Every structure is written in structure tokens, then in C-alpha cells.
């Protein structure tokens, strides 16, 4: 987990906007706390560091996270004459407290060279620090060996202290006391320790370097008590860390949930612990349920964000029991402000075979488009939804538009319907009708004529549209060249008669002049065509 980005942003922002700066600082603090907890959990739970390496890990942990002394260190080291700096001994103390022996010795060497009279004293201290046994990471020594060595070393330090070797220099004497693990001496440096957990680690380093994991809790509790000294009560962060030192995983998660304002941290921590199979081994039989519960909570929260919802999808995918149904419920509620967003959501649903959601979303988009009179968009959405009824409705609208305006809108869409044309009869008719117009425009008259006739005889066209189709046939009938064959002409006549016969007398009475005239014109045109075609077909070729 790296928060470096925030550290980079922070300085540049701070100059410009104090409110923003304070907001970022706040977030940095919280993130730092989370990182602190997370790393400790890694050491104690995931890695389950054993006695020996445990101390080394804890030292690393503290060095990584307690760095307000870094500024001071830098200041002293970069000064011209470090050993004369007023904070010199503070820095040496810091190094010793954090077990950074080499750095401490390096600084002391500078001081030694500046004070040749006390060279022996420095040499002794340097020697002690060099010889200090530390647990090794590899298997080069067993714990018992190490403990033995350490005991000897400890006694040696004790002798030098009692001999008064460092009596003339209070700083060095206190360092020696720290090396001996003298609690009071260490506590004197409270300011440099800054936190009780730093104090704990220092204590362990100099009095119980081979501490076992299960012993941590006692040292932790006493360290906190000693450090806070009854002046202040533990803060939430302290409680969480203490729970970790006590290996109470459940408590850690619970305290984090209370202290933090969203589920991000606990969800991921629990997930990690669950994957390491730690929740079960700690007798939390509801372990995996809790993991899923937290992940569901976190992911649900993501869904209220305008773009982070996409992350939420992945989280739900990893919740075996309720993930899918949560996703189904949430994904339908995402505001579909733009087509791109709708398509994105649809892709996600289609990938997971959420057919009902796909249908629903397409329907919603189709309705929206229809309300805004964007017929082409509505049609393509209803095709995607495989909603035949809606497609029929929209096709009807298209046809109505055509009748009123004499032209089609959204030609591209209708021309390229392809097999989706078959979704509904009306849609098929719309597609074919447009094809007829195209053929006519390309002057492929006989094909157009065949299509037109087929539309009526195969009953693809709704009866209400037949009049329009027949009227469309007029220009074909009036062409110089004969287009319709005799048989076709007979068919057309039959259609016309079917149409007029179908009307009751009342309807005929209501028909206005235009209607009657149209019918008459059609009859005339058909008759004339028939005449011509009979002649044409009767004529022998070439004669």
C-alpha cells in the first residue's frame, strides 16, 4: 500500500489553499494510521513472524512509520559540524532507541575525533554497540545460542556501567543504560520515542530480543501503561494496535470498523486474513461470512459514486453468496445519463448473463428515447432488448411519420437492420418497405415491383398500409415500360378489390373525394397496365 501520491501532492497544494491543505493532511494522517495497522497485521498475522525474526520485523516497522525525527536527523547530519549541533545527542539517542547501531556509531566517531581526550570512552561504547547480538534472519544460530551471547554481552555492559567508565559523560552513560534496557532511562527519552509502540520495541530490543509472539501482549500492555503513565487514556489507534499485539483478530477488525468512516480498510484486511485462512483458524466460524459482509458493504458504497461503481462490480464478483444479487439490484439503479454509460453497464450485465437487467436497461433507454422522439435510438434499444412489442410500436411510429412527411428518418438504422428485422412483423415490414424505396431510387423497377407485391400478398404489410402501397405502385404502373406482368397486375387488382370490398358501406360513405379518386385512378392505371401487358406478352418476339 503506497500513499506516495498524496505525499507528492501535499507540498504543492499547501502553498495555494489552506483549507485543501488541511483536508489532505487529515487524509494523510488517516492513511498513515491505516498503513501502520496493516503492516503490523502483516507481521503478526500473515507472516506470523516467530521469536527472533519477530523483533527484527518490529524494528523495521517502527523505523518505517515513526519518522518525525527524520527532519531532526537530517538537520544535524547536514550541518557543518554535527557534533557541535545542539541536537547532536538527541540524534544519537534516536539511533540507539531505534536500534540503528551503525548510524549511531558513525555519529559517535565524529564526536570522538572532536574530543581526543575521551577517546577511550568512545572506543568502549563503540565496541559494545558493535558487539551487540541481534537475532538473525537466517538459520545461522538458534535462539538459545543467541540468548547466551546476549546474556554475556549484557553482563559486559553492566560491568562497564558499574565501573563508572561513562561517569564523566552523562549522555554516554544514559546510552549505556539504554543498552542495558533500563526502563527509566528509556522513558526519559519519551519525546524522542513519540509513541508507546516505539517504546515497546525499544524495550524489547534491549531486554527481551528473543521475545515470542504470544508474549507480546504483556509487554505491549505494560509499555502502554508505562508510557502513557495514566495521564491520558488510549486512543482508538492505540486500542487497535493493542488488539493486534494480543492477536485478537476479530477485535482488530471490530475496532477498525468503529474508528474508520468507511469499510475500505476493514474489508480488505478481512479479505487478506480470510485468504490466509486465518479467520477460520482463530475460531471465527463466521469468518468467511464476515468477509463477504464487509466486502458487500464496501462495494455497495462504491456504487453511489459516479465512476467508482465499476470497481464495485469486481468486488461483487468475488462475493460468492450474495454478490450476484447485490450486483443485480445495484446495477439497475445506476443513473444512465449518457449512452456510453448505458452501454458500459450493459456490457457488464451481458458478460455476467444478467438477461433480465439487460432487458430492463434497454427498455428504460428505449422509453427515454421514445419520449424525446428519437425514434431511431428507441428502435435500436428495443432491438437490443429483444422487445418485439415495443419494436412494433416504434415501427408504427416510423410508418406514421412517413405517411405524414413522405420521408423516413433514421435511414441508416433501418437500412442496416439485418436479421434483427425479424424481431417483429411490423419491423420486418418497415425494413422491407424501405428496401422497396431504395430499389425504386436505384431504378431497379422490376425488383421493386416484385417486392411491393410480395409485401401485400405475403401479408407482411398491415392492412392499414395497403392503400399507401398501392398508391406507391402507381408510378410503376405509369412507366413507359411495362413493369408488372399480367399475373402481377391481376394480383394487384385483387388486392385493391379486397381492400375496397372490406370496407363497409358506411365507410365508403365516409370516404372523402380524395380516397375515391385514388381508388378510381388505381383502377384506371391497373386496367391500362393490364391492357399493355397482355399485348406485350401476346406479341411474339422478333416479329
Amino acid at each position, binding site marked *: 500500500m503506497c500513499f506516495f501520491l498524496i505525499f507528492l501532492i501535499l507540498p504543492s497544494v499547501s502553498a495555494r489553499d489552506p483549507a485543501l491543505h488541511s483536508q489532505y493532511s487529515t487524509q494523510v494522517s488517516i492513511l498513515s*494510521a491505516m498503513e501502520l495497522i496493516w503492516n503490523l497485521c502483516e507481521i503478526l498475522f500473515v507472516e506470523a513472524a516467530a521469536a527472533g525474526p519477530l523483533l527484527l520485523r518490529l524494528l523495521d516497522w517502527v523505523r518505517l512509520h515513526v519518522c518525525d525525527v527524520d527532519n531532526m536527523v537530517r538537520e544535524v547530519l547536514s550541518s557543518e559540524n554535527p557534533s557541535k549541533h545542539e541536537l547532536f545527542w538527541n540524534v544519537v539517542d534516536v539511533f540507539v532507541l531505534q536500534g540503528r547501531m551503525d548510524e549511531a556509531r558513525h555519529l559517535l566517531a565524529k564526536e570522538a575525533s572532536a574530543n581526543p581526550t575521551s577517546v577511550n570512552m568512545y572506543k568502549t561504547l563503540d565496541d559494545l554497540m558493535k558487539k551487540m547480538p541481534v537475532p538473525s534472519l537466517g538459520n545461522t544460530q538458534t535462539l538459545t545460542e543467541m540468548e547466551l551471547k546476549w546474556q554475556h554481552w549484557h553482563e559486559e555492559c553492566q560491568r562497564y556501567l558499574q565501573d563508572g567508565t561513562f561517569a564523566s559523560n552523562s549522555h554516554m552513560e544514559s546510552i549505556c543504560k539504554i543498552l542495558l534496557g533500563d526502563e527509566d532511562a528509556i522513558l526519559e527519552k519519551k519525546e524522542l520515542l513519540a509513541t508507546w509502540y516505539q517504546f515497546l520495541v525499544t524495550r524489547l530490543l534491549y531486554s527481551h530480543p528473543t521475545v515470542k509472539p504470544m508474549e507480546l501482549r504483556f509487554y505491549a500492555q505494560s509499555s502502554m501503561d508505562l508510557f502513557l503513565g495514566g495521564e491520558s487514556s488510549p486512543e482508538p489507534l492505540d486500542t487497535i494496535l493493542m488488539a493486534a499485539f494480543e492477536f485478537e483478530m476479530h477485535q482488530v477488525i471490530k475496532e477498525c470498523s*468503529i474508528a474508520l468512516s468507511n469499510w475500505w480498510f476493514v474489508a480488505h484486511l478481512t479479505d487478506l486474513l480470510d485468504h490466509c485462512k486465518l479467520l477460520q483458524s482463530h475460531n471465527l466460524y463466521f469468518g468467511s461470512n464476515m468477509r463477504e459482509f464487509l466486502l458487500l458493504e464496501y462495494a455497495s458504497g462504491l456504487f453511489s459514486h459516479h465512476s467508482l461503481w465499476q470497481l464495485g462490480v469486481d468486488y461483487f464478483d468475488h462475493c460468492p453468496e450474495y454478490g450476484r444479487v447485490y450486483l443485480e439490484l445495484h446495477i439497475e439503479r445506476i443513473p444512465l445519463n449518457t449512452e456510453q454509460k448505458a452501454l458500459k453497464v450493459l456490457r457488464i450485465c451481458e458478460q455476467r448473463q444478467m438477461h433480465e437487467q439487460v432487458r430492463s436497461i434497454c427498455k428504460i433507454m428505449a422509453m427515454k428515447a421514445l419520449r424525446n422522439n428519437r425514434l431511431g435510438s428507441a428502435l435500436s434499444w428495443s432491438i437490443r432488448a429483444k422487445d418485439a412489442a415495443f419494436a412494433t410500436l416504434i415501427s408504427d411510429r416510423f410508418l406514421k411519420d412517413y405517411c405524414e412527411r413522405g420521408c423516413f428518418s433514421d435511414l441508416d438504422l433501418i437500412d442496416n437492420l439485418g436479421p434483427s428485422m425479424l424481431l417483429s412483423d411490423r419491423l420486418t415490414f418497415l425494413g422491407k418497405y424501405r428496401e422497396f424505396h431504395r430499389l425504386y431510387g436505384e431504378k431497379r423497377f422490376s425488383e421493386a415491383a416484385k417486392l411491393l407485391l410480395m409485401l401485400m400478398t405475403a401479408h407482411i404489410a398491415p392492412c392499414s398500409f395497403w392503400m399507401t402501397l398501392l398508391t406507391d405502385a402507381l408510378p410503376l404502373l405509369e412507366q413507359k415500360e411495362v413493369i408488372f406482368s399480367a399475373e402481377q397486375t391481376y394480383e394487384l387488382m385483387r388486392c385493391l378489390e379486397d381492400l375496397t370490398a372490406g370496407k363497409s358501406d358506411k365507410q365508403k360513405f365516409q370516404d372523402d373525394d380524395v380516397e375515391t379518386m385514388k381508388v378510381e385512378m388505381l383502377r384506371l392505371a391497373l386496367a391500362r397496365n393490364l391492357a399493355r401487358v397482355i399485348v406485350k406478352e401476346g406479341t411474339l418476339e422478333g416479329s
Partner: protein
Amino acid sequence: WNLQFKGCFGVILQTHSGSVWRVTWAHPEFGQVLASCSFDRTAAVWEEIVGESNDKLRGQSHWVKRTTLVDSRTSVTDVKFAPKHMGLMLATCSADGVVRIYEAPDVMNLSQWSLQHEISCKLSCSCISWNPSSSRAHSPMIAVGSDDNSPNILAKVQIYEYNENTRKYAKAEALMTVTDPVHDIAFAPNLGRSFHILAVATKDVRIFTLKPLRKELTTSGGLTKFEIHIVAQFDNHNSQVWRVSWNITGTVLASSGDDGCVRLWKANYMDNWKCTGILKGNGSPVNGSSQQGIFNASLGSANTSLQNSLNGSSASRYFFPPLDSPRAGSRWSSHAQLLPPPPLIEHSCDADTASLQYPHPRRRCVSRPLNLLPENEGV
């Protein structure tokens, strides 16, 4: 009297001639459709129309009343659309105890609604709720609540179920333990559970589970019998609870009461229900509010600003003291602090006092006030 819509523009619809009790949205699959019900004994259905593209109303939308349902002889107290898988259907309930279910057979024609069912509940009805479950294992179901004040102890919540054989709604269950007037009732979204969850707003907040038992094969048409349990009862409002509303996933319940507060209830993974938040109507902070982490799913027809504050996504909720300006690369862990989240409502006066509460960061040893709240328990 008037319906007011808060959106990017406000629209006032002169509609009913009496107080409008409730307003509800239909599923967006049917377009932008609203229903309202009123003291004037009618319920109305509205649709939003966008202006034609060639007149000067182009792109502007306005609301048109599509139909008025006038069958009721008394005040219509609630109107709710049925779950979308049932088509375009709605139910109304009236003060004279009749629940009516209407259907629009043609979803594109909202002016044609036919009365499909009339259910006589024998008690004055105040609220209804459809069971949103679309599972085929569950028949359509309506819960009806009554605010009848008469002293007889008839159960104030009844459950009606649709019977496939008789093609009618019949009473399946009555919650005998609810004897106080009921103001609101709400089924939770189903989540694939085999049982139903019902929230009731009465003199307190109650949550029931209804487990369907094997359908009785002897009774005509097989009405489901239910095993009813009360899983939560909260009187924190200390007054009449008026409304209850579920979030999308049915995991958070919001209740509002005469104490002027909205309370949020949530179950942890052990199925124990607890209060996870209190919102006070006038914005002032609430003392003793109990909060455990966050409940971040939206509440019914969500108010997004409410949602964001519930998310806690803004870390400014933590009132940290001003820190020294950072040097690049330095880490802040020593200042790592996890102060408990303040109560839900951030009021400007809170921010001022908070900065006084917390001392300079370097002196970590100094005592700090703890806001940890008494009711906090397991996640």
C-alpha cells in the same frame, strides 16, 4: 393540494382538491410516471411529456395527468405501483378499508386503467406495500396497514396474497401482535431469500420476518401459511413512527418519527439489528448518537447528498489539528491518529469547537476526549 417536484426546475401541478397524501414513482421502464392519492377521494396517474421537436416547447418537458381513479368513496390514503414484473399495475387503499388494484393493459396508453380487484379489509387502511420479490416461488402479495383507532384489538397489519386458482386476492395472514395504529409499512427487497422481511411504522419501529410454510393443500387454492417472527422492535423515537423505507438491498431501514429524527437500522452479519445513525431534521448534532462504521447503500429514492454524508467519503469528518507543513518524502505516521467519527450531522458550530478540543500533535501524551459511544458493538 399541490404536488411539488424538486428537480433542476420545480413544477407545481394543480391537481387534487384536497391534501395529497402520497406520491410514488413507477419503474422507469414505463417512462416517467407518477401516481398520487388524495383526501379528495381520488388517485391520479401522471406522465412526463417532452415537447414536440418542431414547436417552441422543443425539449421542454411537462407533466400531464393521464387518468383519475374515482372509485373510492373516501379519502385515498396510499398508492403504490406493483413490482415491474407484474406489468403496469397499482394499488390504492382508502379510509373505508377498501384496497383497489388497477391495471393498464396497454403500457403505452396510460389513460386506460381497469379495476382488477377490490379487497375489503374491514379496517380503515392507511398504507400498503407490495412484496417486490419476483421469484416464481412467491405469489403476488400486498401488506395493508391500518390506523384504525377503535378499541377492538384486531390486528392492524394484514397480508393479502394472490391465489392462482381463484384468481383473487385473499387474506393470508394478520400480524396479531400489531395492535396500535400503523402509519407505514414496507416490504424489503428480496435478495433471493426464501422468507420476506416487513417493516412496520407504528408507535415504534418493528421488523418482521415471514417464512412461507408449505402451502396448505387442503384449503381451496392453497393459500400460503407463514411463520412470523419479530426480529426487531425499537422505540428509540419515543413517539409515533410515521414512515419506514428500505434501501436498495434491503439491508438498511430508515424510519422517521414525531421526535423529528430519522433513524437508520442495520443488521450485522449475525443478524442482530441495531441503530447505525440518527439524523436530526434541523441539522443540529445529536447527543448520544450511536454509530458503527458505515451504511452506505442508498435509501429508497435516494437523496444523493444524504448518501454522501453517510458514506463518509469526505475525510474532513475527522477534525485534525493543523499540522506543520510537510517536507517532501516525510511520512506522517507519528501523527497517525484515528479519532472516532463525529456524529452524522456536520454542523458549522461543530467544526469550530473541534479545533479547540485537540491539542498540539507533538504532545501525544496529553489526554484527548473520547467520543466512543455507548451502544457500539460488533460489526
